């Protein structure tokens, strides 16, 4: 609003002649300011209404679902009895809860650690100048751009027990076939592998753009001082990349936490609960069977939001501090 005030044309000295004109002027200014504010609101209001209707309201519905005892019938009729925190208690006491929480953490942490490692190595590699580097870097984006159902089903076929190419490769080097997606020991690792493949491009692109902001003369000075490539990475690249790294890792955490499609398409969270995460468990409770348990499903979803929000707020704080 201060901006609009400064922009207004300066009052001419003649205006001070009469107080009448001055009050008219003030009224005029007030009207103009009001109109400016209304125009601004006309631009923002659709977004605010949109967020209220399509973010806040679904979230409210979700909390509401988790606090009532819903059945298919009461879902349609809308007369489900209030049940307090029963759904949360039921979910926390469920034998699936701890495995799902553990799998969510393993899936998320292992995924982002390896995505970040591979992405950083590739970013450093692509930061060297060589022919075709721009083109190859663009091609690296493909896994990230593909619809998840496409990449998930491709990986499912590669890892297929009988006819998958991975087991054929193992057969060539004399290793017995592995039930990648159908054995409890391997299912989680397999979905993590596919998820890392999808996440590498995102890490590569952001870290690469971070690298380009590091001044080249730092490296020149370092190599004049006789620092080798590893020392340059340890002493220059890694420390100066820390702010970008923090953002990539936190965003990666929040996004990996909610991965659903990939796991559901490859293993449906199975066998048993061996690759079930909070996201797939929530879906399975709410939609996965003929007897949906909306209340507990929503409760699991809300627990997932809580975890995401903690790290999301951390991300916002880190980002704010960097902008300041």
């Amino acid at each position, binding site marked *: *609003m201060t901006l609009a005030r400064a*922009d207004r044309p300066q009052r001419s000295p003649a205006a001070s002649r009469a107080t009448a004109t001055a009050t008219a002027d003030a009224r005029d200014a007030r009207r103009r300011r009001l109109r400016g*504010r209304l*125009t*601004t*609101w006309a*631009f*923002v209001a*659709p*977004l605010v209404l949109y*967020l209220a209707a*399509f*973010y806040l*309201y*679904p*979230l409210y519905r979700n909390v*509401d*679902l988790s606090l009532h005892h819903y059945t298919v019938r009461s*879902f349609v009729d809308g007369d489900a009895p209030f049940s307090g925190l029963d759904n949360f208690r039921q979910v926390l006491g469920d034998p699936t809860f701890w495995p799902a929480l553990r799998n969510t953490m393993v899936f998320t942490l292992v995924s982002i650690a390896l995505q970040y490692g591979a992405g950083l190595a*590739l970013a450093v*590699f*692509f930061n060297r*100048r*060589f022919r*075709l*580097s721009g083109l*190859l870097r*663009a*091609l690296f*984006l*493909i896994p990230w*751009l593909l*619809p*998840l*159902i*496409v*990449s998930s*089903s*491709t990986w*499912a*076929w*590669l890892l297929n027990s009988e006819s998958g*190419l991975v087991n*054929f490769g193992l057969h060539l080097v004399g290793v017995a076939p592995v039930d990648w997606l159908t054995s409890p020991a391997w299912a989680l690792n397999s979905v993590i592998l596919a998820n890392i493949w999808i996440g*590498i*491009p*995102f890490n590569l692109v952001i870290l690469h753009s971070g690298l380009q902001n590091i001044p080249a003369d730092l490296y020149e000075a370092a190599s004049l001082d006789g620092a080798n490539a590893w020392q340059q990475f340890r002493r220059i690249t890694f420390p100066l990349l820390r702010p970008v790294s923090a*953002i990539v890792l936190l965003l990666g955490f929040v996004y990996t936490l*909610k991965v*659903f*499609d990939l796991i559901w*398409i490859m293993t449906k969270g199975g066998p048993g609960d061996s690759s079930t995460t909070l996201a797939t468990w*929530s*879906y399975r409770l709410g*939609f996965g069977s003929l007897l949906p348990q*909306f209340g507990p499903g929503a409760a699991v*979803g809300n627990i997932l939001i809580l975890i*995401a*929000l903690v790290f999301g707020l951390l991300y*916002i704080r880190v980002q704010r501090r960097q902008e300041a």
Partner: protein
Amino acid sequence: MITPVRRSRGTTAIGLVLTALMLFPVYWMLNVSLTPQQDMRKSPPDLFPLHPTFSGYQAVLRDQLPYLLTSLLIGLGTVALTLLISAPAGYALARLRPRGGGAVSIALLVAQMVPGIVMAMGFYGIFVDLGLMNTWWGLIVADSTIAVPFGVMIFVAFMSGVPDELTAAAKMDGAGAFRTFWSVVLPVSRNAVVTVSLFAFLWAWSDFVFANTLDSGGDWRPITLGIYRYIGNNNQEWNAIMATAVVASLPAALLLVLAQRYVAAGVTAGAVKD
């Protein structure tokens, strides 16, 4: 940093090998989509499509065309809705400094953290209440929630950089906020419009969670459900499944060829994907 040509050639070779490794699953999808059904479980598998068949693609044309058209419609609808909401809001947040603008920005960041599955369950309840289940335009509304926060952030970032002289000149010519937005700021923000449209389309096209929860019984179902149904029903016909996957990947491939600049810009602008 000047690198000797010979070393650069070696680096290019390493780069090619790395890229080939990374893209191998994509190549394999293409290869399987062209493999005849009887060779599918052959050992050793053919590493190249020596006897290519297009029967998989014929199956796509036969079974999946309605799904593809629905996805196109939903993708375009999502782009329109996203632009309609996010471009004016981005302009206001970047240039008009509304009261509470900071709160809106934080709300947008937080909105991006909400898991899709939670949104899906909330929408499910609302859609059942309002009788919107299994409608294509209900799906457009749901899909747009993936893109709108991202869109506003891109527009804010871009429109903040529009030179003050331009808007000041428009004001001198007597243009109000609406005119300044429509005839000055929006045209020079073409790049932002392209980036937001690209990602809105791609995310709507790729969406599976909303489609499967909100539109699984409709007459108008998107291609992701077409593939999912294929996997569920006849999990023997892998060349048809992979052919559908190839066709479903075409928009992403096209984007990369035609608009790589915008894609990279979108990813770096703090892009989102779940």
